[in-house]
C-alpha cells in the first residue's frame, strides 16, 4: 500500500502541487488524468524523489518518510521499493537489453549475477523480447525500448511501478504493443500508478481514476464514475475536450 499525505511542491513561485492526498492499495492500477501542467509528472517524480517535495509524507509498505527532511538513506530505500517507466524510455545507452534489466538488481541490490540474469530473462520474456536480450537500445524500435523499460521495472519486483505517459513518445502503430504489455503486468497484480492520455487504457485497466487540475486532485473514483458520471465541472470540461466522441457513445 502506498499513501501520500498533504504533498506540496513549488518551483520557485510556481506552486505545482497544493496538498495532494492519495492512497493506492496493493495490486491496484491507478490512472492519473489531467490537463497539461496540472502537476501529474511532478507528483509521480515526488514519489521516487526524482523531485523533492517541499512538504508532506509518503508511506510505502512499512516505511514512512517525511518529505521535508528525508535522509539520503530513506530516499534510496524508497527508490529500491519503486520503479519508473519513463516517457522517453531512458534505457542505459551503454548496455544491452538484458544488462539494462539486470543493472538495478546487480548494482543496486547486490544480487548475484546468475540470479539477476535469470530474473532479467523472465522479465524480457514477459514483455515479448525473448529474441532481443543482446540488443542495444539503438537497435530497438521505440515500442521495443519501452518494453525493455517495463521489463527493467518489473524485474525489480517493486511495491509500485510509476508510469509517466509511457506511450506518448511512440509512433501510433507501436502504442498497442506497449499497452498490451502494461495490461499483462496489471493482470499480475503489480501496483501501478499511470499517467496517460490513453483513455481506452484508463477505462479498461484502471481500478481507480484520479483527475488532477492546477495541483489539486479535483475528483477521483472508479472509471465508470469518472467517465460516465463526472461530478465536478472541471472534470466534465476536461473529458469533453479529450473525448468528444465518447460523449455520444456513452
Amino acid at each position: 500500500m502506498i499513501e501520500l499525505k498533504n504533498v506540496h511542491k513549488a518551483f520557485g513561485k510556481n506552486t505545482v502541487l497544493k496538498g495532494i492526498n492519495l492512497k493506492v492499495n496493493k495490486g491496484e492500477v491507478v490512472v492519473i488524468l489531467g490537463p497539461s501542467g496540472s502537476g501529474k509528472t511532478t507528483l509521480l517524480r515526488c514519489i521516487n524523489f526524482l523531485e523533492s517535495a517541499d512538504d508532506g509524507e509518503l508511506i510505502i509498505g512499512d516505511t514512512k518518510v517525511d518529505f521535508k527532511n528525508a535522509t539520503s538513506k530513506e530516499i534510496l530505500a524508497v527508490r529500491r521499493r519503486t520503479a519508473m517507466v519513463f516517457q522517453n524510455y531512458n534505457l542505459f545507452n551503454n548496455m544491452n537489453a538484458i544488462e539494462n534489466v539486470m543493472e538495478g538488481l546487480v548494482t543496486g541490490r547486490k544480487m548475484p549475477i546468475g540470479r539477476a540474469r535469470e530474473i532479467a530473462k523472465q522479465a524480457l520474456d514477459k514483455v515479448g523480447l525473448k529474441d532481443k536480450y543482446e540488443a542495444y537500445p539503438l537497435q530497438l524500435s521505440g515500442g521495443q525500448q519501452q518494453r525493455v523499460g517495463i521489463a527493467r521495472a518489473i524485474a525489480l519486483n517493486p511495491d509500485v511501478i510509476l508510469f509517466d505517459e509511457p506511450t506518448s513518445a511512440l509512433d501510433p502503430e507501436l502504442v498497442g504493443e506497449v499497452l498490451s504489455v502494461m495490461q499483462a503486468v496489471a493482470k499480475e497484480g503489480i501496483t501501478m500508478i499511470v499517467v496517460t492520455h490513453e483513455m481506452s487504457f484508463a477505462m479498461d485497466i484502471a481500478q481507480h481514476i484520479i483527475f488532477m487540475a492546477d495541483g489539486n486532485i479535483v475528483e477521483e473514483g472508479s472509471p465508470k464514475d469518472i467517465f460516465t458520471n463526472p461530478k465536478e465541472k472541471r472534470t466534465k470540461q476536461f473529458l469533453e475536450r479529450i473525448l468528444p466522441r465518447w460523449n455520444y457513445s456513452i
Partner: protein
Amino acid sequence: MVFDFHYVITSFITAVHYIPVTLALSLIPLFIGIVFGTLIAVCRKFRIRFIAPLADIIIPVVKGIPLVLHLFIMNFLILKPFDLLAQYYAWADVIRFMDKVYIAIIAISIYAVIIISETMRSALMSVSEGQYEACYSVGLTRWQALRRVVLPQVFPVAIPVLGNNLIGLIKGSSVVYLITVVDVMNGALTTAQINYRFLEAYIAAALIYWGICLLTERLFAVWENHMKKYQLGSAKNNLRQEVL
C-alpha cells in the same frame, strides 16, 4: 650562412634522444589531467560543497594563464623555498637533486588538469539527465550511476578532444627549454649552440614534433573508431538486419 641539410640531420639525431623527455612531459600530465580533471568535472556537475564553487572561481582564472607563465611561476614557487632551505642548511647541492624536469611536469600537469576538466565537463553534458534519473529509479546511488552508466558514455565522447588536448600538451611542453629542461626542442638547440645553425635546429625540432603529433592523431583516431564500433556498431547491425 647557406641552409645546410646536413646540420638538420645532426640536430635531428641529437634531438631524437630526448623524445622520451617530451613524451614524459606530456603523457604524465595527460594521465594526471584525466584523473583529476574528471574528478573536478564530476564535482562541478554534482555541485559538491566547497569544491564546486572553488573550481568555478579558480578554473577560469588558471585557464587564462599561458603555459609559459605556469612554468615560470612554478619554477619560482618551488625553487625559492628550496633555495632558502639550501642556504639555511648549507646544502650546496640540493638544487641539483631537485631536477627541473619535475618542476616542468608539475607545471604542465596543473595546466592539463584545468584544460581536461573542461573537456570532461562538456563531455559530461552530452549525457542526458534522463540517464541519471533512470539510474536513480532502479535504486543506484549517484556514484554508482556515474561509474556504471554515465562515465562509460562520457569517455567515447571525450576521446577525440583528449587527443587534441594531448597534442596541445606535446607542443606546449616545448616551452620547458626556458627553464633549461632538455627536451626535443632544447636537444635540437644544443647542436646549434655549437655550430650556430639555428634554422636547421628549429627545422629538426619541427620535424620531430610534427611526427609525434601525427602519430598521436592517428592513434586517437583508431581508438575513437574502436569506441564508435562498440557504441554504434548497434546501428550498423540494425541496418544489416533490415537488409537481410
